[in-house]
């Protein structure tokens, strides 16, 4: 079943600076999609449009069969109810402990019972290997730990679609694996995952489909094997070979 559909999407930060041009794609429920491409190709912008941080200038986004009206705060709210996003810079709330970071939205926004929220938050933090860090503050954690808290926080919202925006890009190399391991755990939970990443081996390993983007456009969509070993477009082949060489 199609969970998310994007049709003819255009987005821009200013009229003279188009970021996305005529992007269309369909994502099925439970699918793991990775978006790859060079910096500035519009990968993260797609995610920002999906969560309403940037409104499209043209085109349609359809979530679970309902077109999102970006001018309607309630439509945006219900779209965000189905999604969660993990950012490159973690974006943990610096004034809250790890546990509070994970609990705050379900507790104060979704108004779920505190005991239930706390139990769930602790469970997700345990899954992420942070059972000892409930009371720590973000600045007392390493980058990898912070990113795992961000993953637990996103999971605590029980999203149908989880967006991961270059979640390892701001990490030291030795911390990358701990976050990738955490995402591997997520990939088995049946949540639709949209991953923007430069970790090609990881993308190849976990993705059902890979989307190659360049210059704001979708260049190619295919299975990991199709994209990494038998890309149809020259641009995709060039990008993959450049990445593999480095």
């Amino acid at each position, binding site marked *: 079943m199609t969970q998310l559909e994007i049709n003819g999407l255009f987005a821009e930060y200013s009229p003279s600076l188009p970021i996305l041009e005529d992007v269309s794609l369909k994502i099925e429920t439970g699918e793991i999609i990775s978006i790859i491409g060079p910096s500035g190709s519009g990968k993260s912008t797609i995610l920002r449009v999906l969560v309403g*941080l940037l409104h499209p200038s043209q085109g349609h986004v359809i979530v679970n069969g309902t077109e999102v009206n970006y001018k309607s705060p309630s439509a945006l709210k219900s779209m*965000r109810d189905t*999604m969660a996003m993990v950012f490159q810079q973690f974006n943990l709330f*610096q*004034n809250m402990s790890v546990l509070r970071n994970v609990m705050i939205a379900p507790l104060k926004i979704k108004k779920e019972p505190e005991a239930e929220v706390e139990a769930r938050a602790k469970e997700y933090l345990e899954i992420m290997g942070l059972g000892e860090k409930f009371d720590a503050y*973000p*600045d007392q954690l390493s980058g990898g730990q912070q990113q795992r808290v961000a993953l637990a926080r996103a999971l605590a919202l029980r999203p149908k679609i989880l967006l991961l925006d270059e979640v390892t890009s701001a990490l030291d190399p030795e911390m990358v694996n701990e976050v990738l391991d955490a995402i591997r755990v997520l990939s088995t939970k049946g949540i639709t995952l949209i991953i923007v990443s430069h970790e090609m081996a990881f993308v190849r390993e976990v993705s059902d489909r890979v989307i190659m983007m360049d210059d704001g456009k979708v260049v190619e969509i295919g299975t990991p094997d199709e994209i990494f070993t038998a890309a149809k477009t020259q641009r995709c082949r060039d990008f993959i070979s450049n990445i593999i060489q480095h």
Partner: protein
Amino acid sequence: MIQQFIDQAPIFFTLNNGLYWLRALMTTLSMALIGCVVGFIFGFVLVYFRTSPIPWLLPLRALLIAYVEIFRRIPFLVLTFLILFASRGFGFQLSLFWVACVTIVLIATAYIAEIIRAGIEAVHRNQWECADVMNFSRARTMLYVIVPQSWVFIVPPAFSYFIMFIKETSLTSQIGTMELMSAGKYFNSIGISPLMAYGTCLLLYFALSYPLTRLGRRIEVRLKNRFKGNMATLRASDQ
């Protein structure tokens, strides 16, 4: 001069005079405290609406910006007289104490609003974005995320401002408010040497301001220690 001091000391340092000074000190402190606390609350409300992205609030935002720009530029004494005569003109028999308080609130709101706005803008925008994505309303984002992080930027200048206003209240002696400066004037007018009258005034202003300065410094250090890593993280994420 020293002889005069020795001669007047027995008639100046009495329990009654001490109580008089204490009342004046409390008046000064109350005016500054009421003015700044109420100004702080109004400042927050003002900033909340001033920074609102809602299009139909644009006229209100323009009005609030005009308020801040105007009231930060009006001399305290001019406004004090204006409030005094305007209140009398409109038939409000405000006491001189409340005239002074209203004046302080009006000016403090404008100044503190700017301090609060700067503090809120100093919190990294990624905190707003993250709260947005998690469906926090603007009010909840402010309450749970932004304001707690902005204290570190708001408290030090707000404290300095509060202490500055303790000193500014001396100007209300011009309309006859019985605060520290008026007490100094009163004692001087009944023959106490200016050195003794205004010297006491000076010492009491210092006694009021210095502990508050120390308290402000202490709070500042605590907040900075608490958010040391936070600010480093935010700086790093800007790079």
